[in-house]
């Protein structure tokens, strides 16, 4: 029921804004879905497998750059470039991650930060990707809305709506895929190695292999996000795709929404991204502009949520509230309470 309602809202959300020409709100929707998708990806390694990755944006960047190169040099369609980006990102992730899977806890986290730090000078200087000047993605002018969806190329009108639906589609693919993984052998093994690594090895789980698999799943999702972002921004710059927000926001969406829970990052993203956008739009402009007041208040809101609900917003009694609102309130205590 709630899922059906959610799908309906997600599908209809941009229609009124398209009618009234408020493209900005379509872009907010696009950013919410993009971050929700990345949050689901981060949740696989951080929430399920319990390995905190502080540098996932390198796979966002690898995805964006791979697709841009394939599109610019070989004229590859964006969707084919997306597949190529996923393959490159997953292979590189496996090669980079296997050596550091010996590390645990804080040390694994530090290794991921180090990878991200190393990626920055590479991104800024490597001539293949045009260093700090970045790559520009050419877009064919004209074309129908459908053509835009099939190529991720929108010239002018329809872009906001188009990218909203593109992100909705990739988000849907991500959450369905994550739901399948959660119920599979991989999902069980990820949680086992999170709860007790020796215990997991003792029942035959190759924990190094499953850490690599978990991070590669994350890398695939970040690559998709990077491609989407690149075609939206029409350019790939190192300081943009390796920006610290692509490390922090997905993680915060997962933690604020509910770490290790399938819909946690989705809820987190729905709450955090609009707050951030509203803060920037209201306090980031005007007399207080440039003082970072918007960021300070945004940070305070996150701290309040984290302190009030350390298990994430998903741990609130949503079921009971929905029942009360729909008038089907039952005084009986909910048997499916929080652990």
């Amino acid at each position: 029921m709630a899922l059906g309602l959610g799908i309906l809202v997600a599908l209809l959300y941009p229609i009124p804004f398209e009618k009234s020409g408020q493209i900005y709100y379509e872009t907010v929707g696009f950013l919410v879905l993009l971050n929700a998708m990345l949050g689901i990806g981060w949740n696989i390694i951080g929430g399920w497998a319990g390995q905190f990755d502080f540098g996932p944006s390198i796979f966002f960047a690898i995805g964006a750059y791979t697709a841009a190169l394939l599109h610019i040099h070989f004229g590859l369609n964006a969707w084919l470039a997306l597949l190529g980006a996923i393959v490159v990102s997953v292979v590189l992730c496996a090669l980079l991650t296997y050596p550091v899977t010996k590390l645990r806890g804080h040390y694994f986290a530090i290794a991921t930060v180090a990878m991200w730090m190393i990626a920055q000078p590479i991104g800024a200087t490597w001539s293949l990707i045009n260093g700090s000047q970045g790559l520009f993605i050419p877009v064919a002018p004209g074309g129908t809305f459908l053509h835009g969806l099939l190529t991720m190329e929108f010239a002018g009108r329809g872009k906001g709506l188009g990218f909203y639906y593109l992100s909705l589609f990739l988000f849907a693919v991500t959450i369905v895929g994550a739901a399948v993984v959660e119920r599979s052998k991989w999902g069980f093994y990820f949680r086992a190695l999170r709860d007790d690594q020796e215990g997991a090895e003792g029942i035959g789980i190759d924990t190094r292999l499953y850490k690599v698999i978990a991070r590669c799943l994350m890398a695939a999702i970040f690559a998709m996000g990077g491609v989407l972002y690149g075609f939206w921004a029409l350019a790939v710059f190192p300081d943009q795709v390796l920006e610290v927000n692509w490390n922090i926001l997905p993680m915060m969406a997962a933690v604020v929404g509910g770490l290790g829970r399938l819909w946690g990052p989705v809820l987190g993203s729905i709450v955090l991204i609009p707050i951030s956008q509203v803060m920037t739009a209201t306090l980031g402009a005007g007399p207080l502009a440039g003082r970072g007041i918007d960021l300070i208040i945004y940070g305070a809101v996150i701290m309040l949520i984290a302190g009030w609900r350390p298990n994430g917003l998903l741990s609130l009694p949503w079921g009971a509230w929905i029942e009360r609102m729909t008038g089907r309130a039952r005084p009986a205590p909910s048997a499916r309470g929080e652990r």
Partner: protein
Amino acid sequence: MPPLLQVESCTKRFGGLIANRDVSLTIDSREIVGLIGPNGAGKTTLFNCISGALHPDEGRIVLDGVDISRARPEHACRLGVARTWQVVRSFGRMTVLDNVICGALRRTSRVAAARTRALELLSFTGLAGKEDVAAAALTLADKKRLEITRALATTPRLLLLDEAMSGLTPTETVAAVELVRRIHGDLGLAICVVEHVMEVVMPLSHRVVVLDHGEKLTEGAPSEVARDERVITAYLGERHRGKH
């Protein structure tokens, strides 16, 4: 018929400390072997070597003709060695059922099949009715029982129980001994039991191996070992020195 497990002159050092020196023992299929000795005798180190958590510096460990001295724990498990830990290592945030499913996934990739097997084993070990409880919320006795169930789910040939009965109340201990007997009787596994409480091991074991200061002191039938002067001295000697 060769024994299921052969430990041949196993030596394990930690820096200057020799935890196991030249230890040899065998375990036959369908045999219950008790491994006893005072605290610090090297029982858990030997267990860690057999299960792949540690590798012996010298000597060999052979399971059914296959040298597993260098095998990692997950390989040892695949070859049929399953273990429990002195300090419980259940997957605390997962439910009891999901813990056992993880074990059962060793033999099948299908979660549905693993769930069926896990449910069977949970009723065999007496944890039926607690499937949906988070493992961290169980009592110590039930956590140890869960760990045994999870180990059984990997379909081992040799089950290593590291102090599966320590820290339990007398009633719980009786129930745990009963469970080990049923695992041996109904599933026909070889079992190696580490305990430093002699009263538990003696009636349970077919054969007892005594370790002291990392070396094998003696081995034999429980009744002989219990009368052995050296064994008595090892235990009394420890009592005179006081517990460390």
